[in-house]
């Protein structure tokens, strides 16, 4: 019983440490900037999935569903933002009189 509690306490403290890292990325280390925050936020989501939701113990089916969710989100956000990010690449109106 206590081993489970100890593991959960470790997960919770890791989460708070990552929260602090997120704040540091935002304010203390301007170099990291937005990319740093994004990486820390992603790891926090991963830690929550494996720590609190105990993804490690589940079978292959559950892993498939979790992986599908992450993959489809990257399709939606990645391919979805391809258009605005490249829209100015070929500016439609570049005629010089």
């Amino acid at each position, binding site marked *: 019983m206590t081993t489970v509690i100890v593991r959960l306490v470790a997960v919770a403290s890791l989460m708070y440490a990552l929260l602090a890292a997120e704040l540091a990325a935002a304010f203390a280390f301007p170099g990291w900037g937005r990319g740093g925050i994004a990486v820390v936020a992603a790891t926090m989501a991963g830690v929550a999935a494996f720590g609190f939701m105990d993804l490690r113990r589940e079978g292959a089916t559950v892993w498939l569903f979790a992986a599908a969710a992450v993959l489809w989100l990257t*399709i*939606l956000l990645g*391919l979805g933002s*391809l*258009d*605005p990010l490249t*829209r100015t*690449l*070929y500016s439609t109106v570049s005629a010089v009189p």
Partner: protein
Amino acid sequence: MTHAPAQVSYLDDGHTLRSWLLTTDHKRIAILYIVAITFFFFAGGFAAFLIRYNLSSPNGLIGSAETYNRLFSMHGILMVWFFLVPAVPVTLGNFLVPLMLGARDLAFPRLNLLSWYLFLAAGLVALYAIVIGGVDTGWTFYTPLTSFYSKGHVVAAVAAIFIAGFSSIATGLNFIVTIHKLRAPGMTWYKMPVFLWSLYATSVILVLATPVLAMTLLLLVFERIFGIGVFDPAIGGDPLLFQHLFWFYSHPAVYVMILPGFGVISEIIPAFSRKELFGYKFVVWASIAIAVIGFLVWGHHMFVAGTSLYSALVFSLLSYMVAVPSAIKVFNWIGTMHKGYIRFDAPMLYAIGFIGLFTTGGLTGLFLAALAADVHLTQTYFVVAHFHYVMVGGMVSAYFAGLHFWWPKITGRLYPEMWGRAGAIIIFVGFNLTFFPQFLLGYLGMPRRYFAYPPHFEALNLLSSSGALILAVGYILPLGYLAWSLFYGERAPANPWGATGLEWTTPSPPPTENFPVTPIVTQAPYQYRQAVAVER
């Protein structure tokens, strides 16, 4: 579940209204869905008939453009969300998934019943939206027309689609978990019939794409109610964001509509060629490939909408990639018929019609994937003809094929064979007459969604409208003789077609718990070489 003696069929297991309306038996829920689906099919079909009536003359016959805009919007919404997306999965799928798997019922029976009630509620809200005036934005709801300038009942129509979306998610979730967890002992993934594989691929799309539509519609309603939102160009928002999110759902949704049809055809062609499916593994992985790549291609709906040149090139290449699995399937069906013993019952006629019409529809999709050709052909009747060839020529033919093929198993009755064949042929002729002229109209530049059009398009439109008459007759015919067969049809044996598959091993109609003892699966599907005795 009252465990009545094994031989009482699910139809006789309780006749009270309560036993039907509160049933968790997947077979009864399939019957409830067939009734609802048929109603919406004919409601949407009636709207289509009025559209063709209006277009039979250059300056329109049904009063005003306002009515016409609301008509084609209603036709689009009803057909897409209340017939095509649910059609095969909720009717044949609900009935057959447990039977084909050798299971007693779906993983979550109560969720299945909830899915039907959500569909019913959505249908009622949709009818309410139509009765109070409907929308004039088309089924695509583009902003800023829909969010600021449309005077139609957008919020009511969007609410109906929002609820129908959750009904789809519930069904998709049920199928995926059932196929993963409730397979009969011995049924490995490669021993499953292809119909289950295609329903699995369809459910993956249903579960992962429909939520995006639900959220997009919420964002749209937020913008319409508060007069401001992320799509509003006045504050720097991007109307193209709505189109991206809408088509992120709507293109995979067209694969939701066609994939179950592939599954039905992959069951029927081997059954009526008395020969196992050609290249089983290729057909299976083609379905999965379509489900995955289907999510990468939505940009081809927006080649002229103002998206960047670079993304248009990427989407065009990916759109050509998604056409390859469909081509593989068509070649494999034809390979199955090679050296077979082909019989021309109604399901086979519909299936052969499906291959011809779907291939035409698919090939015209290549026109629209070629960037430069799309610039000329998009937003014209070429696109209308393309998706009707795939949806009506493909999906509806497959739905009718499946309905006829499994009718004996569902109702325990045999339908009149000659009427079945006549119906298939009339539909094939009427369909081609209605939609082939529209390819020419599209090339000549007649725009979509026009209440009135320049006179030099009249001849082809008249031809198309006359074809619609024949098509209407073709669709009313099965309603007639299938209903007739319910009461006067010959009693059906367990396996009238001599087909393989666990669903043919139980009596027709099957008992409530499907199998007295859970079957053990030993061999791969479609083993027709051992010539299962044809009992008919």
